[in-house]
């Protein structure tokens, strides 16, 4: 019954709504993965684009976990994405071209970095935290811009190449390997994240989000808990960044930009911050709408995204994920 059912009481309103998060735990969630796989076969010409969508989805998942479950609001998450991307790139240029270990090392580096940063900045919350994370990421961006010997500056890192995945699957221009490789990483991180949010640790994160002072009065080491969560999320962002490098064989400064941080925030809000599927829905919707409208008119796509975002915020409580779970819940109770 309730212990697992109400899934941390996220956006709960009425008794009837309480179990709606079972929706995402049920097999309906599998649909998402089947659809992702179906896209591979239905749109063979778009596998490269699909791979980039999956990478951004993983990045959005890492951000949604911090924002939705721990209440860590940030405008600097691209910092970890970008650093992960550069680490994977530098590793490859230094001769470490095995992709899977490259991804893991990038995730480890960003995670460890986030432990140090987290202990300082997570004493803040809300708007001050937003400002500090933004300032930090702007500084990192500028530093990367100047440090041309490491990052390639404006030109980015070129000539990056990787060994075949598992020594068998060769990277190709049509994006076959990229798509399936990214989908696999996304699934692995997603399973980890799902385990995390249904653990006692995950519940304590929600407790900290809702009432940090009371949590510390229950005896919880609030700062340490937040830092661990932050480091895990940074590590996932670093993994996403490394995947981007491997998929595209290139690292550009854009990965560290403020715009990337804003993008990921918009994706998560669009999809719904309080559900793991929020990121999984928000990122593809955002990127596909962006792609399609850019084809239609390269100048007005922001307008479409803006209207979409306003519509979702005004009319869909809990983003797309919240909306879908309500529809499902209503159908079942009727």
């Amino acid at each position, binding site marked *: *019954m*309730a*212990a*697992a*059912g*109400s899934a*941390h*009481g*996220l*956006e*709960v*309103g*009425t*008794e009837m709504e*309480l179990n709606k998060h079972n929706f995402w735990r049920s097999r309906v969630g599998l649909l998402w993965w089947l659809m992702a796989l179906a896209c591979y076969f239905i749109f063979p010409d778009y596998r490269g684009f699909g791979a980039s969508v999956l990478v951004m989805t993983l990045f959005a998942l890492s951000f949604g976990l911090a924002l939705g479950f721990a209440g860590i609001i940030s405008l600097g998450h691209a910092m970890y994405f970008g650093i992960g991307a550069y680490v994977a790139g530098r590793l490859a240029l230094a001769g470490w071209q095995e992709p899977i270990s490259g991804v893991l090392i990038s995730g480890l580096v960003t995670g460890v970095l986030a432990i140090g940063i987290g202990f300082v900045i997570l004493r803040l919350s809300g708007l001050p935290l937003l400002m500090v994370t933004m300032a930090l990421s702007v500084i990192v961006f500028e530093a990367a811009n100047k440090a041309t010997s490491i990052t390639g500056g404006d030109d980015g890192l070129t000539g990056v190449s990787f060994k075949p995945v598992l020594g068998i699957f060769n990277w190709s221009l049509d994006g076959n390997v990229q798509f399936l490789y990214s989908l696999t990483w996304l699934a692995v991180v997603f399973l980890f994240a799902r*385990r*995390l949010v*249904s*653990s*006692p*640790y*995950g*519940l*304590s994160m*929600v*407790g900290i989000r*809702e*009432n940090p*002072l*009371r*949590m*510390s*009065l*229950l*005896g*919880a*080491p609030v700062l340490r*808990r937040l830092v*661990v969560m932050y480091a895990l999320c940074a590590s996932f962002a670093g993994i996403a960044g490394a995947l981007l490098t491997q998929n595209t064989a290139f690292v550009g400064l854009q990965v560290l930009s403020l715009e990337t941080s804003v993008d990921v925030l918009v994706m998560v809000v669009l999809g719904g911050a309080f559900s793991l599927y929020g990121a999984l829905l928000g990122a593809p919707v955002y990127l596909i709408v962006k792609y399609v409208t850019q084809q239609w008119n390269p100048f007005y796509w922001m307008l479409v995204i803006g209207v979409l975002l306003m519509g979702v915020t005004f009319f869909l409580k809990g983003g797309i994920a919240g909306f879908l779970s309500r529809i499902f819940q209503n159908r079942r109770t009727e």
Partner: protein
Amino acid sequence: MTAMLALELRGLCKSFGGLQVTNDVHLGLGAGARHALIGPNGAGKSTLVGLVSGAIEPDSGQVLSFGRDLTRTSLQSRVKMGLVRSFQITSLFPKLSVLENVQLAVNENTGVADRLWQSMHSLREQRDRCLEILAELQIQAQADFPVENLSYGKQRLVEIAIVLALKPRVLLLDEPAAGIPSTETDLLLSALHKLPAEMAILMIEHDMKLVRDFCADVTVLVSGKVLASGKAQEVMNSASVRNAYLGRSGHDRFTGVKDHA
């Protein structure tokens, strides 16, 4: 002898700027004590709770529990040692269910809250403990309700459930009846009576009826100083206490002449 005291305050002093809010307060609670702390507004009751719980650091004096000096011990460590407070203004996790509120406390108390890689399902022992507490306070029927949907009186019971989950040996109850409609005070009182007998309880309360029904000892605090301390009946009948705080009607309520004054 003093080592046996569940809670002992020795000469606690605290001033904010020029204002002496706590002035040489001595107090001793044995195991199983039911002790009321009363006094007019601004007497320094809340400050005293802050000093005992560790939220405020005293200028001088000591806080001891079972012979251990906790004066410099952090708030969290005091909670782990069984010195727990409840809140005057209900401070819960409003969007979470009643059960989840209690689970948070039980998880912290049993040291499983740091586990990243275990499902809540598998924590059978913790779950049973939660349900046990809810049953004891008769709020098990609301286990799945978000706390914010409950009546104020029921929310106070959730507050007590959380506090119980922390297995306190010394419990500070900060105005448990504040804001509860009179129809729900009985609910609260019966919950309080079910608290373990060996637990030492220090209760701040304005409701003289509740003090009479629940507390054996009373300490009166006025302007940061202990005005009187001792058996409830004696303290309440003393002339100085009546002048300083209770007044005629307060005394009547305590003696029960007018239960619903």
